[in-house]
Every structure is written in C-alpha cells, then in structure tokens.
C-alpha cells in the first residue's frame, strides 16, 4: 500500500513483524500484545483477526479478569441497518480494541428498520444492549426530487425525519439506551449537475437539509451522530461508495471503507463510556515551529507567512488554539533549555499560541514518556485522554511503546500535510458542547496555580479557607441537563457506581418525585469551576439511597464530599428517612472512592461477592463538620413533599 492511498494516515503502518504477530494463533497473542497491535492501520481482514483473538480471551474462564487487566471495557452494541451489516461486525470488534472496548454486536439488518425493530424487540431486549447504532444509509431514505418546489422539498425532508424520529421513539420506548444516528452521504448515482446547487428540491439540497435535521434531532434527543457525510466527503464519494458492491451485496459503502467506518464508530461508542481525549501535548522544535531553537536561535525559526513550512507550523498552532476553545487542555513537551525555548515561545512575533494557552510547559531533557506520566498525574487525567504530537518518529515510537494508552498520531514527513491528517482522525470528539467545555482549559490552568499556592501556605485548612469556595446547589434542571449528562457519561474515577444515564434519562429524573437530585457548581478565588458534582438519591422505604455520586477530579481534596454529605443529611431528615444508604461498585477506574463512605463516617453493612460494598449512616446521630465551603441553594417549589413532619 503506498503512503498516499492510505485513508487513516494518523495510524502507524504495521511493520512486517507486526503483520506476522497478528497472524499468530489467538492463544499466542496475549491481550497486551493485542492492544498494542490494535493501534496500527489494518485492513478489514486483519481487524477480523484481532476480533477472533479477543473472542478467544473473552471466552476463557478467567476472561473477565484478563479483560479488566487489559483495561478493555465490555460493551454490547445493536447495529441496525437498512443495508447489509454482518460484514461490519468483526472489523468493529477489532477497531473497538483500539478504543479500549471489547464489543459484542447484535445485527438487525436488511430491510425497513422500523419493522425490524418492532419484530425483534424481544430479542434486542434480551441481548441487553448498552448502545444502539441506527445505521441508516443513503438508501434508507426516500428523497425524491421536487424540483423548484420549496414547500414540497421541506415536506419530503420532514417526512423522512419523522420516520427516523419514530425509529428513535421505538428504541427509547422498548430499550431505552443511548443511540448513535448517522448522517448520509449523497448517493453517487444521483444527479450532480452544477445547477442542482441552486434549485429548490434538488436531490443534493434534500440531502443537505436532511443532514441538518438529523443533527437537530440528535441535539434534541441527546444522541450522538456519526457524520457519514463528513467521512464520505473527506475520502471522496468515488471512494466511499461502491455501486458494484451495493448491487451485489447491498454493502452501504465500499469494502475498503470498512476500517474507517468501524474506527470512527468505535470512537463514538467509547465516548459514551467516558473515554475521550482531553489533552493535546505538543512538541516545540519542528512541530510548533520549524527549526531547532537551541541550535538555530529564535531569529532563524521558520514560522508564519513567507514560507510554506512556516505557514504550516502557524496553522498547526491555530488548530491547537481552536481546540483550546473547545475545552482541550494544551501542554508543551520539549527537549530544550527551558529559558531559551520559553523566550522564543513568549516573544517570537509570529507565535499564534500564547503562554496563557498552555496549561503546563515541560521543557527539559528527560524522557518524554516519563514526562507524560508526570503530566497525567499533575492534571489528574488518565493517559488514555492524551494525544501527543511530535515531528520526531523516534519520540513517537518511544511514547507509543512505553505508554500504549496515549494516542500518538503518525505524521507525514512534510509539515504542510499534517493538518488534514490530524483533522481526519477526529481525536477530540465530544458528546456535545457546553459552556464548561469552553472554559475547561482555564480550570486546569487555575488548578496548577492553586497547587502552587498550597506549597506557599501553611496548614491545609488554611488553604481551603483561603480559596473562599462557594458552592451553588440545585436540583437537576433543563439548564444543567447537558452538562449533567456529560458528567454522568464521562466521570470514571470519582464515581461510586459508574451508572451511565443518557440525556433523556437525566431529563426524566428532573420531574421524578421519588428522587432527590443535586447538581453542584463551585466558585473560588481563582474563578468558576463550573459543575463539579452530581448526586442522585432515591427515596427508598427506610433510607435515602444514593444511586449516583460523582465528582470532577479537578476538585479532589477540597472537602466537597463532606459539604455535600451535610446537605444529604438535611435531605434525609426532611424526608423523614432515618438513614442514608450508599454503595460502592468497583470498576477498573474508581479505586479512589473505595473508602469514600468509610471516610464520611458510614458503617459497612454488607459486602457482595462481586466486591460491591453497602454503607449506612444513621442521620440523627450525624454531627455535621464545619465546612470551608459556603453553600447557596435555590430550592424549587417542585421539590418532593415531606413524608412526615419532623426534623
């Protein structure tokens, strides 16, 4: 395969050793090796090999433990297609490993999806899916042209959208799990006259409108969208579709596109399970600028207008700056003399990025893999949320080898070709866009400042007092809904039960009188931390039972659980519940909260064989501890009625 014909150029090409390794029988391919191999650019056939090896390990008696130690999350996916989909199953499983998932797939294919779902409802429910993919392709929509007729065109699009909405309804009524919708690529067999761009009701305009409406449907329902139109546009419709394979086997897209489709789909599924990229680590020399600042001097750096490479380096900086506005944390990792490199960063007139844009500079002569590990601790984020961009193939290989969790894009030799490759990878996919996204990188910067202040101050209590923290508490509401759903989808570490609720389920909780919900926002002297904690507490018969308690790790060690417990005690008393009950459900990532309830003074009342522990706190004897946090609360009239009058 020549370099230019590869579609997923951000993935490294397998060496001949890797190609031999993937052909070994499954029992000779341990899971760590399987995970390492999954990072390469494989064709569908080799993705199938990955899938069958993964299946071998899962089916062993100790399979679940092995998968956990390889940090693979089990996920059950229902793939609904109006076309053929069976050939996508194994490549999807293989691609899933690349994104930290071990996927099981149930296919509902070929024909009218609404009817198929109606028919297969019981089977789908029995499969207990975690997520449903409604993979309707261009052939699944009836977009007949109504040339020159704007009203007719609108009617056609709305009719097709309402059919998709019906499918969506069927799914939420019968299975009630998150859904991934697809936009569609314009069928390459349809008219593509230039004049169609200006004629109301032309096929191409119908497709464009339909895709806009699919995006809106997803926004309203809280679903994710796999933007097929964008994928097809990027590779070109001529490559995306194969009329021959559609005719022969009803393949929704060409066989060569399967690895791209399954990679992007697996990425979206992973996103639903809290696996997303949040940190971009950038090298300096020959990455953010051309040349080596320590050798060539600041004056000779290639950056900005006047040379193709200079413009390309500036464009990369611009891309990073744009990502920062989407809430991505930017860091610099460079082997340099710190003073020299920082001086260039601060004062070179063509710099697009400013010091303010960067959360952490790591400019030293240490091993970059070691530096990245330190950085992960500093930011309190997992290495699997890191993307590392470096022009040096040796550094890339080093980081890939030492830290398999870090995404390390392969880059073309020529810097002018970098951006299309980086953009096509869609590393920084998110479930939506919220105000917190825009401000998140500021939080991390502020956090580093807070840690610095801690070093200067004396006692920890003094430090907490000095932060002048104010917590705003509210029950779930429409305004907070998106962010609440995002926290529920993404929080892995400080999350007692790791129960995932979709946006529509969160919406349902807002009006549920048998549940007390809390969303907490935190401000301090450094700024607004945004929403930092979410609690769902159910009114059980003899206790207030905590279903979900999660917190952003940015605010660890700030006495926030203690402050919230005081409020929960108040809530239990108000409802006439003698105790608060909570459970800890161990996952691969939430060890940090194993002792959460113990630390809060709860008694251990039960331990289940699967490691789940149950805790109780009698509320009458609870002595609230003084908290450094000032709580302000809007209590709405819709709050649940007290059951008996006391407390």
């Amino acid at each position, binding site marked *: 395969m020549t370099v230019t014909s590869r579609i997923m150029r951000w993935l490294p090409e397998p060496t001949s050793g890797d190609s031999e390794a993937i052909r070994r029988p499954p029992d000779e391919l341990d899971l760590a090796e399987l995970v390492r191999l999954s990072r390469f650019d494989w064709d569908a056939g080799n993705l199938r090999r990955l899938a069958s090896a993964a299946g071998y390990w899962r089916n062993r008696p100790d399979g679940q433990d092995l998968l956990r130690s390889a940090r693979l999350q089990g996920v059950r996916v229902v793939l609904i297609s109006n076309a*053929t989909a069976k050939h996508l199953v194994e490549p999807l499983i293989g691609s899933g490993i690349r994104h930290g998932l071990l996927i099981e797939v149930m296919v509902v294919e070929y024909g009218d999806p609404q009817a198929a779902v109606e028919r297969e409802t019981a089977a789908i429910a029995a499969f207990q899916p975690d997520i449903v993919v409604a993979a309707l392709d261009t052939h699944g929509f009836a977009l007949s042209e109504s040339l020159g007729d704007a009203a007719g065109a609108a009617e056609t699009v709305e009719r097709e959208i309402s059919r998709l909405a019906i499918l969506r309804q069927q799914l939420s009524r019968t299975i009630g799990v998150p859904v991934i919708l697809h936009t569609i690529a314009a069928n390459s067999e349809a008219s593509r006259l230039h004049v169609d761009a200006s004629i109301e009701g032309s096929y191409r305009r119908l497709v464009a409108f339909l895709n806009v409406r699919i995006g809106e449907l997803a926004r309203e329902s809280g679903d994710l969208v796999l933007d097929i139109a964008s994928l097809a546009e990027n590779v070109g419709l001529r490559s995306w579709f194969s009329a021959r394979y559609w005719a022969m086997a009803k393949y929704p897209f060409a066989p060569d596109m399967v690895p791209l489709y399954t990679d992007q789909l697996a990425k979206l599924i992973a996103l639903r399970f809290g696996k997303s990229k949040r940190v971009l680590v950038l090298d300096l020399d020959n990455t953010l600028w051309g040349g080596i600042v320590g050798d060539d001097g600041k004056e000779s750096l290639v950056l900005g207008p006047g040379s193709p490479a200079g413009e390309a380096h500036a464009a990369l900086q611009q891309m990073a700056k744009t990502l920062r506005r989407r809430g991505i944390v930017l860091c610099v990792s460079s082997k340099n003399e710190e003073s020299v490199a920082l001086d260039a960063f601060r004062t070179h007139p063509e710099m697009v990025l400013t010091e303010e844009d960067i959360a952490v500079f790591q400019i030293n002569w240490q091993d970059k893999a070691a530096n990245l590990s330190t950085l992960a601790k500093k930011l309190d984020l997992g290495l699997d949320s890191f993307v590392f961009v470096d022009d040096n193939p040796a550094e890339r290989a080093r980081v890939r080898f030492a830290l398999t969790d870090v995404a390390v894009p392969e880059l073309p030799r020529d810097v002018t070709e970098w951006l299309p490759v980086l953009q096509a990878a869609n590393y920084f996919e998110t479930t939506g866009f919220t105000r917190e996204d825009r401000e998140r990188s500021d939080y991390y910067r502020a956090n580093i400042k807070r840690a610095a202040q801690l070093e200067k101050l004396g006692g920890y209590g003094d430090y907490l007092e000095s932060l002048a923290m104010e917590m705003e508490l509210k029950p779930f509401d429409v305004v907070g809904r998106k962010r609440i759903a995002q926290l529920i989808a993404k929080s892995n570490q400080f999350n007692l039960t790791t129960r995932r609720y979709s946006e529509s389920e969160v919406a349902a909780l807002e009006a549920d009188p048998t549940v007390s919900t809390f969303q907490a926002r935190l401000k301090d002297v450094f700024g607004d931390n945004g929403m930092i904690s979410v609690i769902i507490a159910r009114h059980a018969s003899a206790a207030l039972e905590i279903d979900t308690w999660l917190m952003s790790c940015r605010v660890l060690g700030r006495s926030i659980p203690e402050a919230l417990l005081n409020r929960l005690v108040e809530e239990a008393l108000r409802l006439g519940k003698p105790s608060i009950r909570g459970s800890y459900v161990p996952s691969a990532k939430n060890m940090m909260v194993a002792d959460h309830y113990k630390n809060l003074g709860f008694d251990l009342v039960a331990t289940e064989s699967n490691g789940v522990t149950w805790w109780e706190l009698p509320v009458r004897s609870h002595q609230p501890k003084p908290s450094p946090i000032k709580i302000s609360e809007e209590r709405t009239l819709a709050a649940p009625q007290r059951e008996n009058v006391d407390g």
Partner: protein
Amino acid sequence: MPGNDDFLTRLEAIFRAELDDPALRISQSSTPDDVEGWDSLATIRIVAAVEREFDCQFDAADIENIHSVSDISRLIASYS
C-alpha cells in the same frame, strides 16, 4: 500464475482469513458445498480480498457466477 502452487497458497490464505479458519485447505475443485462457512456473503468478502491481493476488479455479473475456487482462478487469469 493461476494454476501453480504459489497462486493457490495466496488464494488459500484469503479463504483462511475470510472464513476465519487458519487450518482450511482448498483446491481448485473446492465449492461452497464442501467448504464450511462459504456462503454468498462470504463470496463477496473473498472477492473483495482477491481484488485487493491481485489488484484487479471483476464485473458484478461474473461474481454472480462464482461457484468454485477454479471459477475465481479463471476470473483472476482473465483480468490480470
């Protein structure tokens, strides 16, 4: 060249990968009836892999008429 051992080995590798059977043996006379898992969708997958491996492209009408390994061999010969 179609007919020699190396050629059959390449085809066999494709069949093994697409039918997920690392020990599968095929001969020119193998048909869907005597190779486990070789159904019509498997034919499509095998054809896609053959087209990649031998850098050629068959007509849809010809693919419909594939009923044995030798049919595939003949097609490769006629297109390369």
